């Protein structure tokens, strides 16, 4: 009898302590854990669950390109560079390719920049092809699976379609040699040619130190209802509107330019990050491509993202329940954006803010150097680990060839 009462007390104590620890107070705000299998996955540790072998490519594929233009370290496509640096010093790296589950090919395809800083993708297919030919001829692992256990980071506008114009990108499709590999890319749109089944969507690179240095005290009251800074009409390329952003950004401007609740303009204020921390909703509409760094900034600064991009696939969609965190608005409903936003019940808004305040959520969107637990690098590795073990069908029989090495536009077949 006495034993039972002691056991009961023990169980009750355990329960109370576990509920207390469930309330992770960081920066003194009660946050909500994204409960359920989706959210807890953010904190998984990939070390020990997979092994990655990094190919040693000649430096003309990575280091020399970076030396030619160091701006690549700061633009939104810098994930490919930091991914390689992370993997080289990470505990998941193995020097023995026989025991590796995944193979990483470090080639910087998005580092050929114009004077303005925009990457040109015209040589990227050739560069990729040349890299693959190199690894296929020097190591047997590519031919073993025709690349099905290899992964590449292609953070460009439309991923491995390697073009900035959507129509051209769709016309090209994903590079044939990458048809079996896993692609880690920022682009994601359902039922789109350039998003392959099994790709891992990552957020675009946003400089973590710069964002940290612009934090303001959390008790500053949020007084802006909707905030947006950026282009509505791309005057240089689409002066009439209708092409850029599928007309969605222009619709936002035309409908809400005189609405006092919407703080929207094309300016580049120096207080951009501070203003985002004073806003409740931040618009993240599509541009020429559906993804944008605004999503990362909104999550870091606790501003609820309003995503206006039909069929978009958001980063780490299998680990982060974006529906509960952000607001999704169809492009056809943009003229009624104010009605939609004001009809959200305040409890829902408060809940979304609590979810956004979760530090593991913010950490998952960043690429900090050096890497920290729970950041975007680890989420990528978690995603790769979840795809293990590889199916038996991935391994080809000797002599079997599934990829057509001569497919694609003729210009792509030229050596790089």
């Amino acid at each position: 009898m006495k034993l039972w009462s002691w056991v009961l007390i023990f169980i009750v104590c355990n329960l109370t302590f576990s509920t207390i620890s469930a309330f992770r107070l960081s920066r003194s705000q009660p946050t909500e854990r994204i409960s359920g299998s989706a959210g807890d996955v953010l904190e998984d540790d990939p070390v020990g669950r997979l092994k990655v072998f990094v190919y040693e490519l000649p430096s003309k594929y990575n280091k020399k390109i970076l030396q030619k233009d160091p701006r690549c370290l700061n633009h939104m496509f810098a994930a490919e560079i930091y991914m390689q640096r992370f993997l080289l010093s990470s505990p998941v790296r193995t020097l023995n390719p026989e025991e590796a589950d995944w193979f990483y090919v470090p080639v910087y395809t998005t580092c050929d920049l114009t004077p303005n800083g925009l990457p040109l993708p015209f040589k990227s297919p050739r560069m990729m092809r040349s890299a693959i030919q190199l690894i296929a001829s020097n190591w047997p692992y590519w031919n073993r699976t025709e690349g099905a256990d290899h992964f590449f980071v292609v953070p460009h506008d439309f991923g491995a379609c390697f073009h900035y114009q959507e129509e051209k990108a769709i016309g090209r499709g994903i590079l044939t040699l990458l048809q079996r590999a896993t692609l880690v890319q920022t682009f994601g749109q359902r039922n789109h040619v350039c998003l392959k089944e099994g790709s891992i969507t990552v957020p675009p690179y946003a400089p973590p130190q710069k964002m940290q240095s612009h934090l303001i005290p959390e008790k500053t009251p949020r007084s802006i209802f909707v905030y947006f800074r950026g282009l509505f009409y791309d005057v240089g390329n689409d002066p009439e509107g209708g092409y850029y952003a599928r007309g969605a950004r222009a619709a936002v401007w035309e409908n809400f330019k005189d609405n006092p609740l919407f703080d929207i303009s094309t300016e580049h204020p120096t207080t951009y990050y501070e203003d985002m921390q004073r806003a409740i909703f931040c618009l993240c509409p599509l541009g020429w491509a559906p993804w944008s760094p605004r999503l990362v900034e909104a999550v870091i600064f606790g501003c609820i993202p309003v995503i206006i991009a039909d069929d978009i696939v958001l980063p780490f969609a299998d680990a982060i329940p974006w529906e509960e965190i952000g607001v999704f608005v169809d492009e056809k409903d943009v003229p009624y954006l104010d009605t939609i936003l004001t009809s959200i019940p305040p409890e829902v808004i408060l809940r979304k803010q609590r979810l956004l305040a979760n530090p593991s959520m913010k950490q998952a969107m960043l690429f900090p150097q050096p890497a920290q637990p729970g950041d975007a690098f680890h989420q990528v590795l978690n995603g790769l680990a979840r795809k293990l073990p590889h199916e038996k069908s991935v391994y080809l029989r000797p002599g079997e060839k599934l990829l057509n090495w001569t497919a694609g536009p003729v210009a792509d077949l030229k050596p790089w």
Partner: protein
Amino acid sequence: MKLSALHQSYLNRRSNSFRSPTSVDSSVDGSGKSLIAVFWLILHCLCCLISLVLGFRFSRLVFFFLFSTSSTNLYSAPFPDLPVKHLDVHTLGRRLEPGANLTVASGTTTTKSSRVVVGRHGIRIRPWPHPNPVEVMKAHQIIERVQKEQKSVFGMKSSKMVIAVTPTYVRTFQALHLTGVMHSLMLVPYDLVWVVVEAGGATNETASIIAKSGLRTIHVGIDQRMPNTWEDRSKLEVFMRLQALRVVREEKLDGIVMFADDSNMHSMEFFDEIQNVKWFGTVSLGILAHSGNAEEMVMSMDKRKEMEKEAEEDSSSLPVQGPACNSTDQLVGWHIFNTLPYSGKSAVYIDDVAAVLPEKLEWSGFVLNSRLLWEEAENKPEWVKDFGSLNENEGVESPLSLLKDPSMVEPLGSCGRQVLLWWLRVEARADSKFPPGWIIDPPLEITVAAKRTPWPDVPPEPPTKTKDQMPLSQGGNTAVVIPKQQQHSTKIRKPKRRSKRNKHEPKLTDTTQVSSSSSKRQERN
């Protein structure tokens, strides 16, 4: 790069539709093929000419409509449910098939059912693209709810009542100053009691102003009238404040006492910061000593820079009264306003056009816990004199006289580095008159709209006395009344942009213009 997007897509479409009719006519035999080729070539040239003449978009439209029966996937994006107006005349979107072949029959569905189409879309605008007031209100409620949540999470857990003490008296600028303070106090998110002490007895004028606030007020009158010199005025104000503190003691009001002089300006952070006071605190007060004469102001600033002492503030141009701290954030003294540059040049009478200087230590820079004033309060510190036995004849200059040990004062606002309120004294002339309650009743008989800005280039001539002229404050603008004899018409200055609007309206006078002697008849509204 993207400049050629439109051009490229145009060529694509033209080449696509170019191809497909030939696939339809694949059954034609070889001999007719060259004829058809020539025919298409001629048509191509014709279309080029049309586009040259009519412009790219119209010719493309014509071309498409001519060949709309062919197998191009011409697809006008449907907007069935929303009654929207399109900025763009053509709302053509094309669904591009992933992969190569264009199917022949029209009305085919694509293999991947993506509802997102590439291409030109219309820009949707709703019929009345302006803010809806109901939604604006809802949004403000949401903002308020979010801020309340933020406050409860990050802000004060328990807040004390704020007791604001304001000495005032009836004068021209009373409504101006008192309304400013009133609006600040109405925005304070904490409980508030406003103790208004009035010199010259509690009047209806003051009572009507403070009643508009909706705050809990205690209106006390004292019988002495406010004297006409700044020195005497500040002495009487000290007396009035002490009266208010007696009221606090008698009513046993529990909260934080702050001194809201009626011409000061308070920031909202001030009210948040004073919640942190335990017993007696001090904040930094920005001094706006204004002379009304700009050149004199500049001169005095230069002089002040010459005679800067070491203990003074750094080269900030705004003098600040506030606590001085050492490096460990402990109070070591006070910064006060340097009156040397103004010696002999400061205002003596209330309506002097000279700099009005603050006292050595202004009361508004201090806050205290009201329990210090009570007869009996638990944990009352020993370094506080008993308020009940305060002898005013000994001279109470600053709130520090209430304490035995001034070093126990808590510096607030990150040790005085934040200026949380501003001191200013601006008063109208002693003989200035104003309509009671600032309501002109009955309304003036003659009102004429000013054509341009009413500020005169030249000071107005004093108005001649007529029956319907009301006495107006002299420093202000005589915007509304015209005595009949002085009709002014000619414009001396160049017409500003407003004159464009009034081009077609009957000529109106600008009442404050000084005339040349020609007098045109004007029409009046």
